């Protein structure tokens, strides 16, 4: 479970996140929805401990991120907004590297790795260098790498951004599976359809603030719209500006 309370962060004079709070429970998929530059990525970076909030606090499975970063990070699996792979390593080596950093090795690791490669359809390329991989393949490798230690909480920053249909379906499949395993999944997106298709709860963020929160039905009811896109636009404003 992830609880973020009153997060605030500015870089110089620019306030990136003004006031963001949300709770993501186990067994649910929570979507952070917002236009580009709304503060989604910065909020998630605070969750996984790479950016220190100016105000507010975050707990991951009860571990305070600021006070006990390593313990919180140990319960997290993260796919950041760039996949960040090493072009000269193979998918197997990527996954093994992170698993070793998490303290996992041996037969257990090989078995887990194989099941992820099966699920993500990476078997045929598992021993090729990722340098020539497509965007979809890279994202899947990064996903396998982020989840190899079976984290209870999973944070995905725009996981389907720029993916083709097949890869998008694979990512959705993974998200559904994580949910069925009673894990806590938080992912961000600026794509309506994505969020409505997957999320149990939607947190709408605009200009660094949470402007609405609830299930897609609740958001429709709140705005009096019949489709979610209209609801989104009326929440964040026509240019994603006004809240």
């Amino acid at each position, binding site marked *: 479970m992830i609880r973020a309370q009153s997060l605030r962060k500015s870089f110089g004079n620019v306030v990136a996140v003004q006031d963001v709070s949300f709770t993501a429970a186990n067994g649910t998929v929570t979507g952070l929805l917002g236009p580009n530059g709304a503060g989604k990525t910065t909020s998630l970076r605070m969750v996984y401990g*790479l950016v220190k909030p100016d105000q507010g606090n975050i707990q991951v499975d009860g571990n305070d991120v600021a006070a006990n970063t390593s313990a919180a990070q140990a319960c997290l699996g*993260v796919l950041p907004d760039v996949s960040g792979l090493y072009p000269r390593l193979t998918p197997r080596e990527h996954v093994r590297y992170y698993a070793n*950093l998490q303290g996992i090795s041996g037969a257990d690791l090989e078995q887990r790795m194989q099941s992820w490669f099966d699920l993500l359809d990476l078997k045929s390329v598992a021993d090729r260098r990722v340098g020539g991989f497509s965007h979809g393949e890279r994202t899947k490798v990064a996903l396998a790498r982020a989840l190899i230690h079976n984290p209870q909480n999973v944070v995905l920053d725009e996981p389907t951004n720029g993916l083709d249909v097949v890869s998008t379906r694979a990512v959705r499949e993974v998200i559904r599976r994580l949910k069925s395993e009673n894990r806590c999944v938080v992912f961000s997106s600026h794509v309506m359809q994505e969020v409505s298709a997957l999320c149990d709860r939607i947190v709408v963020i605009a200009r660094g603030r949470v402007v609405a929160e609830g299930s897609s039905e609740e958001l429709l009811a709140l705005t009096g719209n019949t489709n979610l896109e209209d609801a989104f636009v009326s929440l964040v404003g026509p240019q994603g500006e006004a809240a």
Partner: protein
Amino acid sequence: MNFSRLLVVARKELMDSFRDKRATYTIVFSSLFGPILIAFMFTQLAGQERAAQEIKIPVTGKENGPILIHWLEQQPGVEIVDGPKEAESAVRDRTVEFVLVVDKKFAEKFSDSRPAPVQLVSDSTRQSSRPKVRRLQSLLNHFNSEMGSLRLMVRGVSPLIASPIKIEEVEVSSAGQRAATIFNFIPLFVIAAAFSAGMQIATDATAGERERGSLEPLLINPVPRWQLVGGKWLAAAIASLGGMAATLAFTGFTLSKLSLEDLGVRFHLGVPEGLLLFAALAPMGLLAPAIQVYLACFAKSFKEAQSYMAFVLLAAMSPGIISTFVPLGDKPWMKLMPLLGEYVMSTDILSGKIPVPMLFVAGALSAVILVAILLWLATRLFYSEKIIFGR
């Protein structure tokens, strides 16, 4: 303290870097460059020495001065060959290095005891001909004074009267000593290898990691950041020490193939000497990557980091470069300074003086302390949002 994560990082960085052809080439070339240059300098020196010992003198107008020619032929290592007709243009066109021209009136003037004219045609801008021209000049001077003395004696005068001073040339820069100067290049190249062999890893694992966006996911792993930094440093240090060892080994191998005894070189770079040099210089293999890892953290890109590295390399080589012109001196404090100490100690080893074991310990210790400080500073940078996201 548990170093297991540090080793995981180091192993990955080494594997990653050895797959990078550029990195591998850098290590191979940086460790081959020095030995090849040293071999080249030695062969040049040996060649010049040999050339001066055994000279072929092109003579134009041999028939004009049989006395001189006969005398020259008697001298050891001298061979007389026919010179070109147009001596000056031949030297200018570089078809010959120098020519001795014997004038038509040589025999006539010589028998009249008047100065008999000969011309020594040479081009002073030609470095390679200088030792030979000098040898020929000294041979002619020798002939001159020998003949002069004989003439005075014939006239009942002591030849000593004609020599108000006696010049005794003491050549300090003997071949052996010049060879020793070349030896001073060995620590220079080994230190250069320390900086260049680990450079690729030190920059790729820091600035490169950030540029490619792989630093962010890496830092989300619950691993203390000092272990990440330490692992990156360790990988670079292994490459650096490897490059240094390879440079020494290649140098030893090359020197064993050259016959240095001809140059009066008594030093022999065998396995024990090589190990001593390695022990003296190894602290740089630890320190250089630490400096590079720390500096590369500031660079916004891999390219920017590499341009910093060029300056670092130049700075590190400067004491060595200076020492090949001016001796660094042998003040006790120098041996305790990082970098300077390594140079001074290896100069001692190369001249046959073995430093006391305390100095090896002190060198290693000061390097370890500096490495710890630099890695601590680099670890602090790895906590900075500015550094992580490159703002």
